[in-house]
């Protein structure tokens, strides 16, 4: 009951604060070489977009389920979210208060997608996410810096980071926080690169990403952090609700401009 009241109060105050939209940052488009998916010489071009500065938090998601009962823990269709959906919540509209400012987790792709759409946004594509996430505090693309890679990798190795609060670390080049270090994040096309579960048979039609095949298909063999992200994405199905997986939204430049 105490939690419930607390959550209620928190939710109320949060609602007031968040009445204005979650802050977004402009990511200027450009070209980059992703870890997977294209030949090394080819680059992928990414158009400019706005991205949420932080992952969606439990408090923010609470307001969403308040307005959209079909996404509450007890109401959600099993087709759209498995049994672990909002696993840390102790009710349809309450969760342990210390999680309010932590990234919402145990969220299915369907739920994340619906959340973004209700805000007039969408989930980022893998390329957009990776493009924004290759920046460090000072550079658009810090991937050549081994220290940057090590830092990201370290973050992935620390257990239970989903309990950390958002916005506690410096913004990256674009003004975005927490792309690394808290939770994995859903992407709209998370399953577009299929790690077949056998990462050593690249060159076959089913471009596997396990073991050797994973290595053969990759453009940057030292980017272990990226390997882990791609492996993680390919292990998912859209209804999965995973403890270490959250999300954030993006909008296209035009939509965002019209809105302003």
């Amino acid at each position: 009951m105490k939690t419930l009241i607390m959550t209620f109060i928190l939710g109320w105050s949060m609602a007031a604060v968040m009445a204005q939209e979650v802050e977004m940052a402009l990511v200027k488009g450009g070209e980059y070489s992703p870890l997977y998916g294209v030949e090394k010489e080819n680059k992928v071009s990414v158009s400019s977009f706005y991205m949420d500065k932080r992952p969606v938090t439990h408090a923010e998601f609470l307001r969403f389920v308040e307005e959209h009962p079909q996404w509450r823990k007890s109401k959600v269709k099993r087709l759209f979210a498995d049994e672990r959906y909002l696993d840390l919540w102790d009710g349809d509209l309450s969760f342990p208060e210390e999680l309010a400012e932590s990234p919402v987790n145990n969220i299915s792709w369907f739920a994340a997608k619906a959340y973004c759409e209700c805000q007039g946004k969408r989930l980022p594509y893998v390329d957009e996410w990776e493009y924004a996430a290759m920046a460090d505090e000072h550079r658009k693309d810090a991937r050549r810096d081994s220290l940057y890679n090590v830092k990201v990798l370290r973050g992935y190795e620390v257990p239970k980071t989903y309990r950390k609060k958002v916005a506690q670390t410096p913004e990256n080049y674009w003004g975005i926080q927490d792309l690394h270090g808290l939770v994995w994040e859903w992407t709209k096309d998370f399953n577009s690169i299929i790690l077949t579960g056998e990462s050593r048979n690249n060159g076959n039609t089913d471009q596997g990403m396990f073991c050797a095949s994973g290595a053969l298909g990759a453009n940057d063999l030292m980017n272990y952090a990226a390997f882990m992200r791609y492996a993680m994405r390919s292990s998912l199905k859209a209804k999965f609700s995973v403890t270490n997986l959250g999300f954030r939204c993006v909008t296209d430049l035009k939509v965002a401009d019209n809105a302003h």
Partner: protein
Amino acid sequence: MVMENLKEYLFKGYLYLFILLITGAFSCEQKQRETAQKVKSADYYANIKVMGEMKAELTAPPHVPPPVGNRPAKKLYMEMEILEEEAEMADGVSYVYWTFGGSVPGSFIRTRVGDVVEFKIKNHPDNKLPHNIDLHAVTGQGGGAEASFVAPGQEKVFSFKVINPGLYVYHCATAPVGMHVANGMYGLILVEPEGGLPPVDREFYVMQGDFYTEGKFGQEGLQAFDMQKAVNENPDYVVFNGSVNGLSGENALAAKAGENIRIFFGNGGPNLASSFHVIGEIFDKVYVEGGNFVNENVQTTLVPAGGSAILEFVADVPSNLVLVDHSIFRAFNKGALGILTVSGEENHNIFRGEIMEGIYRPEGSVIQKMPKDGLELEAPKEMTKEDRVAAGKKLYMQACFACHQANGEGVPNAFPPLADADYLDNVDQAIDAVIHGLSGEITVNGKKYNNIMPAQQLSNEEAANVLTYVYNSWENNGTLVTPEMINKRRR
């Protein structure tokens, strides 16, 4: 009378011949049968009928499940949980291991050839990563890797029939594979032949692995995985059963003198091959590479990464047998050392211990002239400043320029400049940065930097040279840094 005797002899002779012939024929037949059993193909085992079903018992090292004995091939159900958890690597050192079943190596799986295994793999919801399992005993896509690929908080079931007897490694095969294996994701699966392996008194499960940590061997605290060291195949730890103390102290193996001992030994790697040896014993039998071929009287057996061997010996006398990787620096400096305590009665026919102690005088019992103190080493040639600058420049271009740039200007906001840098006014401070590394906020020429510089693995001579180069370039103050100055700052 004589004739009769002769007849009798003849008769007996024929009888013996007859018996000989019969036994001869029998033993021949037996041998043929044995060979026939040995050459039974995987094809044959693939078609063995399964009689009944049972839940398989999996065990954490150093234990193994009970032998299969005479049981027929069955359907075997087994479950394995994947856990990512912190545990002790050495005294005061911990590491986040990724494990099959909560131990390194993972749970031991024991099957009989022809068994059909239904394998459930469970990835704990708190885990950060997807995992899978590639069992070398499995014939099929990726050894089951594809079928078992499982996201955190999910479980999967797949099935296979074991058709080749032997001792096999299993491991995780999810990208980045090297890292999954380096973090401890390997174990052994035994496929026993029909009728089982010959019975012994004791069986143990031991597996070697190499680990790559950010800190050096023994450096205290939670140690992160060091990708670069792994790629360079330069481990800080080479250990048995997951940690430096994995097979010693309270984890030491124990047996009694006279017992027949079998060790199921595997090497998870990820990189190093093992020269496995037991100090104070000779292997009576080695199932080479875990297969059918048996070698006898072996001192050291080579076990490749991702390979195995079955070792058998009788612990003849009481002693502490020491298990080592006979690539011996690994044993004494990286942890590849385990103890098998054999208790029981002394056997002086085999080993008598110390019988006499005396002084050895090769030249006879006269007073010897003492050699001069120490060795007369030639003093190293003193290097001039110019020599040091030249040698230091080469080092700089290997180790430093990527961040500090060839012109010493650094990278704005990321890596501080060395050119005309006030940080260098304090020579000790500069030396410390090179030999101990530097992290956290510093101010150079009025600008703040917050980054990490790793400690450079340089000798005193090398560190002196590279610093002398820096001090004599880009309008710095021309200090000559000597190896003695470096040595003073070593901790």
